[in-house]
């Protein structure tokens, strides 16, 4: 016998018309040679012959054999596929619907992720801009802050200038801008958010100028406005060259030298309504004029040159501050280091731990990417399951096709084209769904995304996506169906063995595991939010009005406001403070007391208040008392919160002394503790409260806090309060905030996650149930005869229902068990980032498990009961 491999090789490549007789020739010649020259040489000659027969005339022609899968064949496949879909409308609906939901979810998540990644790309110098960050080592941790001193700008420019194309100092601010009143048209006054920035700023950020040029900040008394603000201030008049007053101060008159296009919502400086020259800020604030390396109040943005990277530039500037503060031992001990924070990471990696970027929004991007992937996977699994389940009905068709001479590849392409048809239809449905629901999703996610009809990448990726899904989802049915043995199928002895059911069961378990995991995750997220919301706040949030002092006119009006507002009857108390109750604007170190550990360098919140503050916000005292105007020594007194009291280590802190040096707001060095209040949650409700001290001062009070009379409603009170303000401070617009609303904003990010997670969980369960529904009906149908016989023999409906549902319930219970460790692991990791967190209790798991079982029973019962109540005569008579 000639070498088998080459014989088979020949049979494979040879044209079918020629293969027979050429093979015969080969064998004949081989036989002759075998007698003449022996086996080895004959084998060798045979191999040479086979190789030399590999020629164009003899190889099977490619085109000729594509004729197996030509245009009319494909048409027939689609026709048959379409007819199949119509024949079983219920299944088709479930199939297409489930897949469409999965695709829509994937599309939404894709759009969201794309939007997140496109953040800040509006700026042309996106890849080279960075913010300078200062790292301080305190108490074993490294804190990072973007707040920098005024001398650093020139330092970076002169000593390190070769690394940077631009170095720009900036300070963001809220200012009141007013147009002068001209004739009848009164003045328009607006409080706007903007930035004082050095001259090169607009060029570095490549502002898109609609009028004027980017060098419009040369003159210290100039200003660039964004388009919407220009319209608001000047209507349709040409705003160029017009003058505006800033903060009603004559020193800060500015002329409009340029209008720039508003920044899109997905950029860092969205909402930056004006740019004014940094020199203007410095000239109006004498304290900012001294160049120092320790007066930290501004930000610095840089753009690195083409020849360098962020890492190398960071290395170079690392000690820029340290080198200039060698004499200040205290500062040197915290080791201030500089590093660069690139623009491309501003949005997604904004969380800094230990001096480096440690994540932030990017984690949510990953999370949602994974979730989207899973939901899509679920939908594909569904599709595969249902298709294979239904396939047993088509066994006869497959048998006949095979018997008529169909090649396996033809059958596979038939089923692939059917699945592509379904996927294509599902895609169209998903597209329609996504575009109509996009507005709702935008609200949910807080974005302004649009359908990318014009984007080539969108269509390209959709096409790839359809192909991949179609091939993936269709692979199992295609391979499984085309492997049927034609004879067995046509004879009718084809039994889908027990083993055929196992992959299906695995798929169902996977689906439910994912769904249960997601549901438990959502519940825990909501629990965490609620837990933090329920946390005692330490003051009363309702009916507390906050007004920021945005111009010098606000200052010095404390007593007048107090009397006037109280006279209106709608205000109970008024107090001023340096920070709003929802933030801590000033933190300082330099505290000392008897018994303090010398290695411990505390950094506490330092808040100045007026004496009525405690009554206004509603302090809850643990020890001691509130400030009192009558007691003169209170001016050197501290009210501290519990967190600070714990650190002090005194049994009763009231009456003890704390020494404080270095804070540039205080006149005194020694303070006596007057009282201890319950911790006010001022910063994050998820973190432990910052130890803080409150003390009296007439300076640095930036906020007015107003306690409304609880007997009047806000709608009544506001106009009265506004009237008082208009009388006393006519130059400022009346901008107020409510403390409870501001507090609620702190949960915004988590609530958004919670909402999105719940939406996706619902969808996941929906898809799983759809799958289960289809599968249950299939199983019921398959066992029709068996059920008929059981009924005849005497089974009750209940018995049959239990039998049919039992299988599925076991699967779901299994998935719940698998979901528990997965959930625990991931949720424990997520919760670890919050210092203040809820516990993961087993009740959540038990509850969800029960719910899953109940949902399964409901889904399956419909089919089970329907099958169980069928007339056995009908079921036994069928086919």
């Amino acid at each position, binding site marked *: 016998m000639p070498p088998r491999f080459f014989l088979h090789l020949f049979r494979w490549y040879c044209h079918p018309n*020629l293969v*027979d*007789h*050429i*093979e*015969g*020739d*080969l*064998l*004949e*010649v081989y*036989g002759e040679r075998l007698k003449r020259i022996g086996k080895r040489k004959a084998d060798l000659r045979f191999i*040479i*012959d086979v190789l*030399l*027969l*590999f*020629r*164009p*005339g*003899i190889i099977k022609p490619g085109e000729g054999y594509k004729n197996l899968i030509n245009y009319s064949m494909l048409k027939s496949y689609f026709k048959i596929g379409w007819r199949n879909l119509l024949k079983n409308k219920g299944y088709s609906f479930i199939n297409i619907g489930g897949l469409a939901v999965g695709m829509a979810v994937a599309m939404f998540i894709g759009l969201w992720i794309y939007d997140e990644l496109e953040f800040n790309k509006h700026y042309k110098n996106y890849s080279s801009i960075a913010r300078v960050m200062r790292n301080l080592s305190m108490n074993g941790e490294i804190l990072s802050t973007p707040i920098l001193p005024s001398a650093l700008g020139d330092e970076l420019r002169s000593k390190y200038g070769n690394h940077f194309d631009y170095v720009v100092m900036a300070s963001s601010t809220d200012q009141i801008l007013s147009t002068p009143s001209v004739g009848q048209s009164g003045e328009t006054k607006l409080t706007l958010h903007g930035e004082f920035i050095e001259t090169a700023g607009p060029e570095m950020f490549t502002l898109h100028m609609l009028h004027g040029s980017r060098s419009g900040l040369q003159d210290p008394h100039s200003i660039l406005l964004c388009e919407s603000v220009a319209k608001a201030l000047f209507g349709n008049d040409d705003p160029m060259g017009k003058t505006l007053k800033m903060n009603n101060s004559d020193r800060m008159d500015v002329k409009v030298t340029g209008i720039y296009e508003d920044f899109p919502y997905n950029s860092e400086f969205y909402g930056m309504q004006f740019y004014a020259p940094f020199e203007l800020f410095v000239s109006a604030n004498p304290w900012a004029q001294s160049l120092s390396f320790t007066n930290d109040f501004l930000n610095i943005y840089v753009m690195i040159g083409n020849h360098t990277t962020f890492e190398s530039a960071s290395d170079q500037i690392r000690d820029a501050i340290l080198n200039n503060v060698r004499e200040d031992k205290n500062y040197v001990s915290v080791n201030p280091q500089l590093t660069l924070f690139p623009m491309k990471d501003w949005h997604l990696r904004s969380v800094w731990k230990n001096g480096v970027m440690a994540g932030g929004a990017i984690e949510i991007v990953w999370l949602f990417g994974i979730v989207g992937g899973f939901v899509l996977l679920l939908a594909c699994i569904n599709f595969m399951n249902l298709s294979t389940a239904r396939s047993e009905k088509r066994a006869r068709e497959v048998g006949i096709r095979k018997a008529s001479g169909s090649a396996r590849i033809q059958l596979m392409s038939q089923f692939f084209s059917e699945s592509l048809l379904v996927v294509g239809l599902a895609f169209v449905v998903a597209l329609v769904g996504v575009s109509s629901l996009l507005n709702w999703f935008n609200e949910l996610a807080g974005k302004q995304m649009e359908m990318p009809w014009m984007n080539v990448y969108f269509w390209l990726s959709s096409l790839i996506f359809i192909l991949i899904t179609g091939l993936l989802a269709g692979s199992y049915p295609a391979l499984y169906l085309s492997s049927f043995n034609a004879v067995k199928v046509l004879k009718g002895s084809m039994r889908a063995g027990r083993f055929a059911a196992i992959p299906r069961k695995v798929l169902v378990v996977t689906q439910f595991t994912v769904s249960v995991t997601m549901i438990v995750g959502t519940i825990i997220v909501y629990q965490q939010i609620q837990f933090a919301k329920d946390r005692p706040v330490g003051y009363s949030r309702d009916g507390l009005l906050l007004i920021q002092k945005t111009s010098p006119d606000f200052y010095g009006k404390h007593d007048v406001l107090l009397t006037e507002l109280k006279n209106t009857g709608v205000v109970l108390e008024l107090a001023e403070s340096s920070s709003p109750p929802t933030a801590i604007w000033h933190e300082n170190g330099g505290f000392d007391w008897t018994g303090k550990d010398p290695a411990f360098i505390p950094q506490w919140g330092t808040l100045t208040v007026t004496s009525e503050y405690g009554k206004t916000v509603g302090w809850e005292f643990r020890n001691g008392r509130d400030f009192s105007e009558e007691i003169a020594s209170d001016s050197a007194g501290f009210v501290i919160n519990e967190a600070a009291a714990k650190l002090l280590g005194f049994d009763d802190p009231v009456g003890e002394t704390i020494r404080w040096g270095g804070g540039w707001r205080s006149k005194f060095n020694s303070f006596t503790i007057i009282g201890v209040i319950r911790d006010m949650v001022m910063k994050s409700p998820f973190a432990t409260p910052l130890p803080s001290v409150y003390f009296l001062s007439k300076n640095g009070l930036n906020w007015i806090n107003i306690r409304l009379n609880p007997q009047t409603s806000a709608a009544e009170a506001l106009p009265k309060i506004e009237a008082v303000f208009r009388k006393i401070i006519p130059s400022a617009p009346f901008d107020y905030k409510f403390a409870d609303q501001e507090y609620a904003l702190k949960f915004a990010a988590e609530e958004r996650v919670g909402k999105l997670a719940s939406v996706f969980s619902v969808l996941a369960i929906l898809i799983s149930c759809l799958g289960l529904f289809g599968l249950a009906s299939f199983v019921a149908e398959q066992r029709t005869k068996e059920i008929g016989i059981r009924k005849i023999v005497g089974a009750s409906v209940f018995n049959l229902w239990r039998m049919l549902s039992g299988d599925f319930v076991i699967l779901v219970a299994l998935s719940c068990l698998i979901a528990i460790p997965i959930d625990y692991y991931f949720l424990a990791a997520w919760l670890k980032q919050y210092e203040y967190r809820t516990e993961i209790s087993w009740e959540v798991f038990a509850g969800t498990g029960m719910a899953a079982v109940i949902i399964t029973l409901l889904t399956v019962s419909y089919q089970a009961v329907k099958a169980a109540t069928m007339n056995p005569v009908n079921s036994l008579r069928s086919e």
Partner: protein
Amino acid sequence: MKKYQLGEFEEIVILTIGILYKEAYGVAIKNEIETRLSRQVSMGAMHSALVRLEDKGYIKSFTGEGTEERMGRPRRYFQITALGKKAMEYSKDTRNELWRAIPKVALDLKIIG
């Protein structure tokens, strides 16, 4: 009017088919050529030529019985068609004309003495 395309090897093959008359099948053709012309003929070249000749319409084939040496595979017998005969004659006539046109002197190679 159209030229009859007939390559050198193809001509040999078609002539051999003529020689073998009703016995012209793959292996026989190969052996005949090898015996008469003392040159090795590879199966690949020969079958290619046969396929080409058949495509051009110069030969036609019919299937014969299988034998035991060929494991039951059938034999393919070839015959020359009328077109094929014309092609052969054309080729032969062209050659002869060219021969006649050579002056006697060119073939008397007694140059360097």
